[in-house]
């Protein structure tokens, strides 16, 4: 089975600061490829990272702040180009592609610093994502041809379905409200809905539970599970909240200073001495 996503030997540094170092990760084949090659005496942002994600798998990426997690996401979606290594999706390399091209290949993400389209309505936010899967040409839109109108209806329905995932919170009259009127938690949900509407195969959530209270966190945990179970996404999650990580993950990898320091089930990683040291015990004890 071909992995959905595979990172091989990924490295990225910024102006002398190595943010990621030789990262390997495979999401998909269920095989974990290690290429441990710690670089001594160098701080790398992403340090020869290997990562692999199986279809329908949920992998969490944890690590203290500055560990290179968001940089990893940015590398995958094409914002940065890696210095070294390869990013492979469904067997082909996506290094060098623009974020838009990568999105069209089936990668969707949310952002750590929420980036909803504030001045557009809730529904429009989600409808935007359908762009890559639609084909109405300008003249068709201008003259509102039957084909264009049909497509518009389909896009609207798609948006409604995705928003319905979140219960009643983003439904009904909320559709026509500008996104800036939403609460913080609702904006996070909106961003997830928007990402879902691109019809991705890989969904990447960057700290989806950030800033949420325990009830909302519980909800998000259930939601992520639902996304995998009902829709079949493979999901890569960056999270700090260990309740969420424990609740959703099939696999967890821990990064510190751009290096993968542990990989395995939640229990394995949570008790890994290196991880505990990196975190100074954050969250790990509470879940017992």
């Amino acid at each position: 089975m071909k992995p959905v996503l595979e990172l091989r030997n990924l490295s990225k540094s910024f102006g002398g600061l190595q943010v990621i170092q030789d990262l390997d990760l495979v999401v998909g084949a269920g095989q974990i490829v290690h290429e441990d090659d710690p670089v001594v005496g160098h701080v790398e942002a992403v340090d020869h990272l290997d990562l692999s994600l199986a279809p329908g798998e949920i992998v969490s990426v944890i690590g203290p702040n500055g560990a290179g997690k968001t940089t990893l996401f940015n590398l995958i979606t094409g914002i940065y180009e890696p210095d070294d290594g390869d990013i492979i999706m469904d067997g082909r390399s996506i290094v060098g592609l623009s974020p838009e091209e990568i999105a069209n290949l089936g990668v969707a993400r949310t952002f750590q610093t929420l980036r909803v389209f504030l001045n557009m309505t809730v529904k429009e936010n989600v409808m935007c994502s359908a762009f890559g899967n639609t084909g109405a040409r300008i003249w068709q839109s201008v003259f509102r041809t039957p084909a264009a109108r049909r497509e518009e209806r389909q896009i609207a329905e798609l948006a409604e379905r995705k928003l319905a995932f979140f219960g009643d919170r983003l439904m009904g009259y909320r559709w026509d409200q500008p996104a800036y009127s939403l609460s913080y938690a609702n904006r996070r949900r909106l961003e997830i809905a928007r990402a879902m509407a691109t019809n991705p195969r890989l969904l990447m959530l960057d700290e989806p539970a950030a800033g949420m209270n325990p009830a909302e966190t519980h909800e998000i945990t259930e939601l992520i599970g639902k996304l995998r179970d009902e829709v079949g996404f493979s999901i890569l999650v960056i999270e700090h909240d260990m309740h969420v990580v424990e609740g959703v993950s099939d696999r967890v990898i821990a990064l510190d200073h751009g290096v993968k320091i542990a990989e395995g089930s939640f229990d394995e990683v949570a008790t890994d001495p290196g991880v505990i040291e990196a975190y100074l015990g954050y969250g790990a004890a509470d879940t017992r």
Partner: protein
Amino acid sequence: MEFFLQQTVNGVTLGSVYALLALGYSMVYGVLKLLNFAHGEVYMFGAFAGYGVLTVLGGASALSVPVWLAIVLMFLAAMATSSAIGVALERFAYRPLREATRIAPLISAIGASFFLQASALLMFTANSRTYDTPQLIEIQTGIALGPIRVWMVRILVIVSAVVLMILLTLWVNRTRLGKAVRAVSFDREAAAMMGIDVDKVIVVVFLIGSALAGIGGVMVGLVFGRIFHLMGFVAGLKAFTAAVVGGIGSIPGAMLGGLLIGLAEAYTTGYISSTFQNVIVFGLLIAVLLVRPSGLLGRPELVKV
């Protein structure tokens, strides 16, 4: 060779003026991340203020005071006028928009620029005025530089510009207020949290930048004679070019940029044609913006995703 030297002197003279203007653009962009489109009009009003003083003192041929005093007074009047306009601009056209959308200050700036042009049209009409410099300063006086003669006026302009730029650099690097300006350029919020009065710093930046522009206006009057109500527009664009070429936000960059643009214009006028000097200068800007948007000495912007 003689022609080349003459054009070079022209270029350096012109460049000095552009540098003074570019400094204003750069400093304001540094603290506010705003392109002050109306800066050219500030310069234009300075030129007219100088002219006003000249007229009050009897005009170029019948001065009631010694020449050097007249020139000093003209500079002072220009500085005062331009600073006043600049500070007013900041307070009424830009400050209300500090927290607004990105586009708002730009639109306000271009509106203000237009309003000032219209005011000048109202007050001065479309007729140009002339400083009548040959009456003021004997043309023949000057320094010999190889095969050519450099007029006193141009020497005055170049030397003044250099002195001012040195003073400004010293001020920005050595004084407390200067350091505050640099701090605000780096990070406005952090500077505010460190106890710097950001509003005051910004006012000071506009004050100094506009004063320099006013001086530039008088200089142009002295060297080229004619001033008119639209002179700010094109000069402003060229000075902006200079600021960007040198690296917007950088003071040495503004000086370097000014020099380059001045020379480019002089050589173009001398060797190619004066008709298309503007086109070429503008084309230069477009090229620079595309190839190296942060300019020669500027810092590229880093944005956290």
